[in-house]
């Protein structure tokens, strides 16, 4: 562990879950605040100025997307790692689009969570295998000739995502594709940007076309 302990705010409406995460992270991180809903989260983040916000996707008062939107005008904007029991595609796409750097499910092991938090603090995307699979599913449904650039993954991005979905780490992917880990990260960031840059209209259109939203409101 580094000497500097990452300052973390935990946002989750289940106090028991917050307590569990707090205990798990106590060694590696400094938990500077907790919040149970959107308003509280924004207040706590403004006050505590954490490095990383661990954000539950389903929150009273508007959900993670509302928190991410509220954080846009925070002076020292923290990085956000979304954490949820849900792995529904619209949740994943929604929080990533709204600006979360990564998405992990609540079943993640303690050590892996600490690693994900540190990656998030450094501004690197955290793409678990499941998230990678969702993004692939979302992008792959598009017939290539109809898609514009924003809708399309480059072959390399696709390759990197496929490896992530298969369960390889960044380092392993770098070795397998004979590129540097930094390049792997930049490909993942590229995918992240594509998700975030598409306009609201494009994304809801995009999601509907792929059957992701299935009648639900476009998240984000």
């Amino acid at each position, binding site marked *: 562990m580094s000497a500097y302990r990452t300052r973390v705010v935990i946002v989750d409406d289940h106090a028991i879950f917050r307590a569990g995460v707090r205990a798990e992270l106590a060694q590696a991180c400094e938990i500077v605040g907790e919040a149970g809903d959107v308003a509280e989260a924004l207040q706590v983040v403004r006050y505590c100025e954490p490095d990383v916000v661990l954000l539950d996707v389903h929150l009273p008062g508007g959900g993670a997307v509302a928190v991410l939107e509220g954080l846009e005008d925070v002076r020292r904007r923290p990085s956000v790692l979304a954490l949820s029991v*849900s792995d529904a*595609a619209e949740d994943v796409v929604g929080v990533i689009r709204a600006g979360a750097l990564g998405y992990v499910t609540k079943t993640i092991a303690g050590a892996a969570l600490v690693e994900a938090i540190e990656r998030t603090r450094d501004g690197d995307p955290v793409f678990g*295998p499941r998230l990678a*699979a969702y993004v692939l*599913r979302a992008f792959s449904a598009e017939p290539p000739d109809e898609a514009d650039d924003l809708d399309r993954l480059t072959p390399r991005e696709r390759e990197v995502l496929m490896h992530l979905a298969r*369960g390889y780490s960044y380092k*392993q992917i770098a070795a397998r594709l004979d590129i540097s880990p930094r390049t792997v990260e930049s490909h993942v960031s590229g995918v992240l940007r594509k998700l975030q840059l598409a306009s609201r209209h494009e994304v809801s259109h995009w999601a509907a076309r792929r059957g992701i939203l*299935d009648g639900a409101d476009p998240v984000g």
Partner: protein
Amino acid sequence: MSTADASTSGRPAARSDTGSLHRLVERYGSAVIAATLGLAVLAALADGVIAQAGVGIVVAVTAVAVAWAIRAAWRRRPTAGVAALVLFVPLTGLLVALRPSDAPAIERAARAVDVTVATLVVAAAVLVFEGARRLALSRRQTGDSPWATFTSPDPTPGDGRVALRIGAAGLLMVAAAMLLVALAPRGFAGVGTSWAGLLVLVALTVAAIVVAPALAAAAVVASRDRAERERALHRQAVAAHLHDSVLQTFALVQRRLDDPHEVRRLIRRQERELRDWLAGREQLWPDTLAGALREVVDEVEADLHVPIDLEVLGDCPVDAPVASLIDATREALRNAARHGDGAPIRVLVVADTATTEVYVRDEGPGFVLDRVPIARRGVRDAIVGRMAAVGGTATIDSELGSGTEVVLRLPPPKESTR
């Protein structure tokens, strides 16, 4: 105490420009109405009445009516003022008709009726205006249209009174219309229309006022009932599902607490099942690649106590090559579970028009291919052989210390059966 005051304070300060017009009407409207009515009545009475006998009574009655109306307006209760006029002015008309005069009786009677009809029409107009105003006020907070008073299945407080007022106005209008009908033969106010036409008009008005809202209300109630029925059915379906799945698993888990492997298996299977159900994939039959692999994963997890994560991109029906792919995947999973030292296994399935692939990866100790014991090579051959038999490929990628991955690939289907 008046509803007008209450709604003024309850209204958002910054409304559109109709808001300011509204405030103006609210503040001065009643007074203007009362004054106009009073003047109209006085003008009617002045028509040849002043000089006659009995004029004292007529003027006194009219004065009382107008005074009452003005006082009511002053206290912002124009409805009471209108009520006063409605009560007194026909009386005045009657007095006009009965007063001693040189004019023929028929003419006097006609004039009295004229006054009465005019008053009724004005009073009805005022009542309708007032009722609509209050409706708009009371509905402004809820954001509904004024019609919601009649059609809303959940009336807001005060709706009853407002509706009553509108109803009274409607009745007044009908009465006025009927008087008009009675006068039609002599061409009152230039209305030379036939009896039948006027009756149809009246009937249509009544229908519009009474029947249309009733129909709308019935439709609203019906759709609400239908929505409630659907909700109830949905709740039943959810309850039934949770009962058969989650509660069942809870019961099993409680009985098997002494066997952590079994508990974990039960929980993981339930989690997968619940996730599929939440994602709307509850109809996963083993006659598709995804459904069949789900069963394979359950089976291997149960037998060998290793957590397996399955991710599916696309799906396809099971034909002969896909069946071989499924069998090969089962072998690969068993292999990984047996030799992976309990490390989690990840399965990724990609099935689209271009390709059908299964990736089975474990984070176990890995091995060097050249040094694989004969027995294991046999399993490997079984996997490779199976895939080769249907024109597919199987590659095994392993390294000491960084796990093993088996990649199974089918050639793209020839026809568009997938």
